[in-house]
């Protein structure tokens, strides 16, 4: 029972890191970025390739899994994404679906269709018993790292100058610009940060989901969207609660009621949208 809860929390934390970048672009900046999973895939590939081909230790690959997608993200943001900030949701959806459709064959062309495995180091493998509750060491590791990231993000957004500027730019870009805030730069950095977090999430998730393969961006797209939908646009805290709820529900659902499977999380999402259709995505609309 407690094991399932902890597994659910670990899965939720993983979802949080994967989706937190999306909750910035989609939840805060109101940009529907369906290509978010592609950045996560890049991060996963970076870790897998560095470990398998260069023999780098797992922990050292994680910063690279953050930096590479972040650089890629900022490059794409500067050249392509920024043209569509004011565009209709339909255009944003089409554009980012196009990016996903391009990213998957590129990955398959360069690295092949078969999943790239991430082999955990020995000290992260295995389980420990704690007062009769068994839990995988890697799950604990994920909970610790992702919890730290969540706390850092929240402090960053609330207590730093950059965080305040980002919130101002998101609330009203024109007024923020008028106050001398470089909105363009803020958005670019936020986007890079979100992409980097996605990459880190992809690297951490690689073992849990059984390797990174070219279909990763689509497989988890829906899950990301559900996290952001449930969490709403309340920034980091909303996304964290959304992810945890989803993680626990998904793991518990698979364990206790396997016959209805993924139906639970879809139902939760639709019910959330019915009960609070405005509240979740109220930002930026009706203005």
């Amino acid at each position, binding site marked *: 029972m407690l094991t399932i809860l902890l597994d659910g929390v670990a899965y939720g934390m993983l979802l949080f890191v994967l989706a937190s970048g999306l909750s910035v672009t989609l939840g805060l900046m109101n940009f529907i970025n369906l290509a978010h999973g592609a950045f996560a895939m890049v991060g996963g590939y970076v870790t897998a390739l560095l470990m398998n081909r260069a023999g780098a230790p797992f922990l050292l690959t994680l910063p690279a899994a953050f930096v590479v997608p972040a650089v890629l993200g900022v490059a794409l943001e500067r050249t392509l994404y920024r043209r569509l900030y004011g565009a209709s*949701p339909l255009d944003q*959806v*089409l554009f980012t*679906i196009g990016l996903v459709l*391009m990213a998957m*064959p590129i990955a398959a*062309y360069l690295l092949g269709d078969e999943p790239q495995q991430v082999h955990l180091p020995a000290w992260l493998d295995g389980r420990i018993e704690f007062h009769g509750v068994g839990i995988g060491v890697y799950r604990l590791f994920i909970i610790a790292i992702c919890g730290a990231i969540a706390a850092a993000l929240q402090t960053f957004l609330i207590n730093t100058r950059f965080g305040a500027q980002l919130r101002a730019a998101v609330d009203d870009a024109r007024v923020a610009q008028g106050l001398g805030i470089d909105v363009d730069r803020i958005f670019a950095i936020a986007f890079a940060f979100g992409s980097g977090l996605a990459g880190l999430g992809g690297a951490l998730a690689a073992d849990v989901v059984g390797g990174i393969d070219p279909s990763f961006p689509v497989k988890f797209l829906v899950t990301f969207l559900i996290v952001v*939908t449930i969490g709403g646009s309340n920034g980091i805290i909303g996304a964290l609660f959304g992810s945890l709820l989803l993680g626990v529900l998904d793991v518990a659902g698979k364990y206790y009621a396997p016959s209805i499977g993924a139906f639970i999380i879809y139902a939760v999402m639709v019910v959330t*949208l*019915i009960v609070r259709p405005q509240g979740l995505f109220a930002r930026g609309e009706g203005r």
Partner: protein
Amino acid sequence: MSAPGPTETLRRLAAHLQRRARWRWPEILFWLAILAAIFALPLRAGIINEVLIAGLFALSLDLILGLAGIVSLGHAAFLGLGAYAAAILASKGLAHPMLGLVFGAAVAAFAGLVTAPLLLRGGDLTRLMVTLGVSLMLGELANRNSWLTGGADGLNFSIAPLLGLFPIDFTGQRNAALYSFAVLFVLFAVARRLAHSPFGLALAAIRENRLRAGALGVDTGLRIVAIYTVAAAYAGAAGALLAQTTQIASLDLFDFHRSADVMLMLIIGGTGYLYGGLIGAAAFIVLRDVISAATPEYWEFWIGLALVILVLAGRERIAAAPRKLVALVAPRAARRGAA
């Protein structure tokens, strides 16, 4: 001279609608060309049938996206529902194609009617998510209730000959294409009539500015529910046709990529003038066949590239190109169309 009275305005409006609703000769040629293609290319009947069904599906999305401006990322829900309804009916022994078609459309229409109220609140983003969520839920339901749907194996069934005479299974691919053509043409004519009716005008008003349409006295909620139900029925009919002519209904009909593909087809062809879905479906499927013959695994890349360019270059500008072409070929017809 005094301003025209209300009856005079109504009369002018009716005359205007009638003028716009007239069939023009490029349209007639378009349909005759399809019919000719079915007879002239018997070996291609299979792919023509696929194009016609995809065209019907894209037409149904055009009804909500092009006419009323309602975005959807889960239109495959109705395709899958129609397909499974027709397949289940046939597997229980009621294998008449027309019966399955009507039943598939009716089941999908009912689902559209039930889920349409979810679209009335919130913005485009909420609508995208709700439609996506509904299609995923239905797909998962079909996956889990394998006693009814056959689960991951899909549902195989046999279909009776059309009108008791013409087999539409793999032995009669041309019959299947003609069957799909007839259904598509009738449903297209109905959709065309709808678009050129006062109801179609109200939808256009909702698309342009829903708040203002409401202020003009249009019951926007009712109109949206109505067109969504009709579009669901169309998608259900497309699903039923697809299941009947392939004798299988499978879970991938509910997949996200079906909803995305149909949106791509419609966007490639252009929204709002009803032919866009048909042209887009033909372009999409022919393109897919050509590209995947050259590079079988990576054809998605080119579709993705086309999409990105399409959006960056301005969707409206490119979508206007076919109409400009029509204007070039038949200036009088185009002028009348624009009037």
